[in-house]
């Protein structure tokens, strides 16, 4: 019989390690959440209690259990306007800087990776339409990519549940969506405006087709990568971006923990990372 009890010492030891590896901090108030998932993993792996499990987690060369645990400990969901402070940051801080260096007629290019079911790319499009006065004089390309072709097909179809749209302003919902039997369908104009493409971020040859972007949104993806793949992804993003371009990560992710290629930019709305202007 496995003892899956997690003591206060165990919790402390685990949360320090988890923070160091992932950047995700569990406050003591999350103890129940953490204990429950740890106990589940202890049972699932057949380990003999926390110490046995922690050793497996800490030393397993393949990193498979680490990945399984990260999947359990993170919330994998997306919806319109999620972490919208970054879109505010795009409009109010990043775009004015980018525009200062753009030649007339040169399009602004934004890459969303991973696309998932499209909520993030469409949210950016709506933000630009509603909040960025310079859209009238500047072409914008939004490319939204994912490794999963099924989720891309879903994104292109643009049909969303009530839960996915719950944070949208009512006026935007009314303007850009129509109510259907299966939920809310985003309008054709927006579906036509975003290019959904399949790409494997770990395949340098595939990513090499993506160059010259001004802003990359890569939120809540790198947490699922191992250290080497994360660094490889940072290298890829460096090449994807123009000098001076920005990359936005999820709230629990930090580029500083992955690579020193980018500069930290602390804007009033959000912390983002920038490819140095003089870089390449």
């Amino acid at each position, binding site marked *: 019989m496995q003892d899956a009890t997690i*003591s206060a*010492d165990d919790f402390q*030891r685990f949360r*320090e*390690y988890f923070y*160091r*590896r992932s950047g995700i901090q569990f406050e003591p108030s999350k103890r129940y959440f953490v204990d429950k998932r740890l106990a589940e993993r202890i049972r699932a792996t057949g380990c003999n209690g926390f*110490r046995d499990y922690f*050793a497996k987690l*800490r*030393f*397993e*060369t393949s*990193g498979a259990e*680490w990945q399984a645990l990260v999947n359990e400990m993170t919330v994998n969901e997306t919806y319109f306007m999620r972490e919208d402070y970054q879109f505010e940051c795009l409009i109010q801080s990043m775009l004015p800087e980018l525009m200062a260096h753009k030649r007339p007629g040169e*399009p602004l290019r934004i890459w969303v990776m991973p696309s998932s079911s499209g909520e993030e790319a469409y949210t950016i*499009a709506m933000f*630009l*339409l509603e909040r960025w006065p310079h*859209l*009238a*004089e*500047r*072409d*914008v*390309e*939004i*490319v939204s990519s994912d490794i999963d072709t099924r989720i891309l097909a879903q994104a292109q179809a643009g049909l969303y549940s009530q839960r996915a749209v719950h944070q949208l302003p009512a006026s935007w919902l009314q303007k850009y969506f129509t109510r259907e039997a299966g939920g809310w369908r985003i309008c054709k*104009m*927006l579906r*036509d*405006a*975003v*290019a959904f*493409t399949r*790409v494997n971020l770990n395949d*340098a*040859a595939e990513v*090499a*087709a*993506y*160059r*010259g972007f001004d802003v990359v949104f890569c939120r809540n993806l790198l947490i699922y990568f*191992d*250290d*080497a793949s994360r*660094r*490889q992804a940072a*290298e890829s993003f*460096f*090449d994807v971006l123009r000098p001076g371009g920005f990359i936005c990560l999820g709230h629990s992710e930090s580029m500083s923990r992955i*690579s*020193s*290629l980018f500069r930290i930019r602390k804007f009033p709305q959000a912390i983002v990372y920038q490819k140095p202007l003089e*870089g*390449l």
Partner: protein
Amino acid sequence: MPLIRHEPAVLADRPRASDDLAALSAGLSALAPAERRAAAHALGAWAQSAPALLGALDKETEQSVRSALLGALARVGSEEAVAGLADCLRSEDAWLRNAAIEELRAMPEQVAGVIAHLLADWDRDVRILAVGILDTLRHERVEEWLLQLIDADADVNVCGAALDVLAEVATARAEAPVAALLERFADEPYIAFTGKLVLGRLAREL
């Protein structure tokens, strides 16, 4: 319509895939850093590219290219590449030392072949940096290497660094070696503090 759509085929020209090791190695000396980075990335897929990558790392001054060279060496992962990364621990350049450590931490199988030498290096700083590799290395022998180190190393800073890592990974078998270390460095407050912390945790777990 200001929001315009471009299909992937026209996003950018796909770079030509070179299948020539010599041509790629020559690319490491290209004038444009972007070309040198591209060459380094491509060479990461060539098992025999370690000498070219290490030669370039020796001369390269642009940090983004150095970063690509280190990543490529890690992907190559050959004995020569790992030895080259380990050699970076001797560099005067703190960025290079730290970047090499990050790469080595993600290569547990390969590091296992060189870590004993690094932990026994004549240079105390190299030994401390080698402990830094073990800090997040996923390998079942991490505790064993650390215990051997605190048993044999006469330097208090090296032992202190090892004790730091042991604070997280120590199991019951660490009890006697940590107690012996405490005795050996009885006058060193840091060793006393961390050592007692480790022993306290082990006692609660037993």
